[in-house]
C-alpha cells in the first residue's frame, strides 16, 4: 500500500494499464508480423519480398495508395483549415460545433455509402443534373464511384476528415493569444503579416500532426477501398487482406510482407516530416 502512495511510482501505475496493453499488443503483433513475412514453407526466406518487388501489381497498388492518400490528406487539410480559419468565431459555439460533429458520427464505410448515394450514376446529383438539363440521361453522368481514379474513395475521406481537421485545430485557435494580432496591427502589419507572424507559428505544429495522422490512417485503411474500390488497381491494405484471407497459406507471407512495406512507408513519411520541420522549429526559436 505504501508503494501505491509513493509520489514517484504513482504516475507509472496510472499509465501502466494503457501502456502495457498498447505496447504489448503492438510490439507482439509487429514482431510476429515481420517474422511471418520472412517465412516460406516453414523455413526462412525473403521469397515474399522478392515476389512483391518483381510483381508490377504490387507497385501499381502502392502508387495508387500513395496518390489517394496524398490527395485526400491535402484536400481535407486545406478545406478544414479554411473553415476553421474563417469561421472560428462561430465554430466555438456549441450549436455550430454540433453540426461539424455530424460526419464524425458515421463510420468510414457509412460515409462511403453516402458518397454512393450522392455521386453514383443513378444518384442524387445525377438526378439533379438531369433536372437542370446538364445531362440528358443516366449514362451521361461521369463514373465517380467505383472508378479506377479512386474519386469515390477520395470524396469519402475528404467528407469524413474535414470535421476531424476542424476539431483538432479549434483548440489551437481558442488558445491563441489575440493580443499578438493586435500588436502586429499596431505596428502597421497587413492581414497577411498578422496571419504569418501571429498565428502560423502556433498552427503549423498541429497541422503537421494532423497531416501525419491522416496520412497514416488513409495509407493503411481497408474499410473504404474494400467497399468502393475496383478490382484493379487495389489499395495495398486491401490486397494484403485478400492474400491473408484467401485460405491459401502460401500467400500469407505475401500479406505480411505487403503490410511491412506499408508500415515502413508510413514510418519514413513521419520521420521525414518531423525531421524537416525540426529545422524550421529551431530557426523559429532563434527568431530569424
Amino acid at each position, binding site marked *: 500500500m505504501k508503494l501505491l502512495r509513493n509520489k514517484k511510482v504513482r504516475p507509472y501505475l*496510472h*499509465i501502466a494499464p494503457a*501502456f502495457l496493453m498498447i505496447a504489448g499488443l503492438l510490439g507482439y503483433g509487429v514482431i510476429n*508480423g515481420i517474422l511471418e513475412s520472412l517465412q516460406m514453407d516453414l523455413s526462412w526466406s525473403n521469397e515474399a519480398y522478392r515476389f512483391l518487388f518483381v510483381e508490377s501489381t504490387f507497385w501499381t497498388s502502392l502508387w495508387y495508395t500513395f496518390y489517394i492518400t496524398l490527395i485526400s490528406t491535402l484536400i481535407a487539410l486545406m478545406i478544414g483549415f479554411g473553415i476553421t480559419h474563417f469561421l472560428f468565431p462561430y465554430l466555438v459555439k456549441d450549436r455550430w460545433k454540433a453540426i461539424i460533429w455530424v460526419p464524425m458520427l458515421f463510420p468510414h464505410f457509412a460515409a462511403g455509402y453516402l458518397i454512393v*448515394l450522392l455521386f453514383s450514376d443513378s444518384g442524387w446529383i445525377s438526378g439533379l443534373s438531369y433536372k437542370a438539363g446538364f445531362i440528358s440521361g443516366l449514362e451521361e453522368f461521369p463514373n465517380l464511384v467505383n472508378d479506377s481514379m479512386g474519386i469515390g474513395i477520395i470524396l469519402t475521406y475528404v467528407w469524413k476528415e474535414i470535421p476531424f481537421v476542424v476539431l483538432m485545430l479549434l483548440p489551437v485557435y481558442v488558445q491563441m493569444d489575440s493580443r499578438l494580432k493586435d500588436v502586429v496591427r499596431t505596428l502597421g502589419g497587413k492581414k497577411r503579416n498578422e496571419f504569418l507572424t501571429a498565428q502560423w507559428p502556433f498552427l503549423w505544429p498541429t497541422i503537421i500532426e494532423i497531416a501525419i495522422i491522416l496520412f*497514416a490512417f488513409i495509407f*493503411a485503411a*481497408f*474499410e473504404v477501398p474494400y467497399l468502393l474500390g475496383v478490382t484493379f488497381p487495389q489499395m495495398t491494405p486491401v490486397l494484403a487482406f485478400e492474400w491473408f484471407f484467401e485460405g491459401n497459406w502460401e500467400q500469407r507471407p505475401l500479406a505480411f510482407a505487403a503490410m511491412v512495406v506499408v508500415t515502413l512507408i508510413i514510418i519514413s513519411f513521419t520521420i521525414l516530416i518531423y525531421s524537416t520541420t525540426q529545422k524550421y522549429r529551431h530557426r523559429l526559436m532563434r527568431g530569424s
Partner: protein
Amino acid sequence: MLRNLLKKSLMVSAVILTVGPVILVMLQSISFRWKWPDIIPQQFGLRAWQGVFRDPNLLQALTYSMIITGAVVMLTMIISMPAARALAFEQFKGKTVIETVLMLPLLIPLLFIVMGIHLTMIRLNLADTIIGVVIVHLLPAVPYAIRILRTGYERIGTRWYEQATVLGASRFKQFWTITVPMLMPSIRSAIVLTVVITLSQYALTAIIGGGIITTLPMIYYPYFNSADQSIMAAFTLLFAVLPILFWFGIELVCKSITTMIRQP
C-alpha cells in the same frame, strides 16, 4: 461588407456539405420507391425501418455490437482516465517515450498488428470470441480517448484538486465532484468517439472474430450490393444513432450519481 458576405456563404456551404448528405439518407430511409431523377421521394413509409428491425441477422449483429461497444467503452475509459490524468498533471522520467508509445496505434497499421497476433489469439482460444474482439478494438480507441481526456484534465488544472484536498475531501469524492462534472465535455466526446471507432472496425472484427462474431459492419458489406436502397439507408443511420444512445446513457448515469453525491 464583402468579407462578411463571403463568411456567411462559406458558413452556409459548410453546413450543406456536412449535414446535406445526412438529410438525404434520412429521406432515403423513410422513402417508398425513390426513382431517379426525382429530387425528393414521392412516397413515404416506414417499411425500411421495419425491415431493419425484423431481419434476424441484423438483430443478432446489433446485440453483438452493443455488447462489444459497451465493453470497449468501459474498458477504454477505465484504462485511459488515469493515464490521461498522469500525463496532464505529472512530470516523470520517460514521459516522452511513454507518450510516443501510447500514440503509436495511430501510425502503425492496425491491420498489420492484428494479422500478426491472429495465430496467437487462436492458440490462446481468444479468436472467434467476444473477448478477443474487445481486446483488439481497444487499440484504435485508447489513443484517441487519452488525447481528448488529457486536454480536458489540462483545462481543469490542479488547483481544484489542491483545494479539495485542503478541505479534506477523499479521492473518491474528488473524482465525483470535480473530475466527473468538469471533465464531462471531454468524457462525452471520448465516449462518442470510442463508440464510433468500435462500430467502424470491419477488418479487425473479421480477422479476430473469424466471421463468428458478426457485428453490424460484418453484415453491412454484404447488404451493400444486394438489399434495397431504403433499408441500406436505415441501416446506415443506425450507425449514427448508436453513439448518440450511448452518450445519453452515460450522461444519465453520471448525472444521477453526481446529484446523489451532492446530497448531504
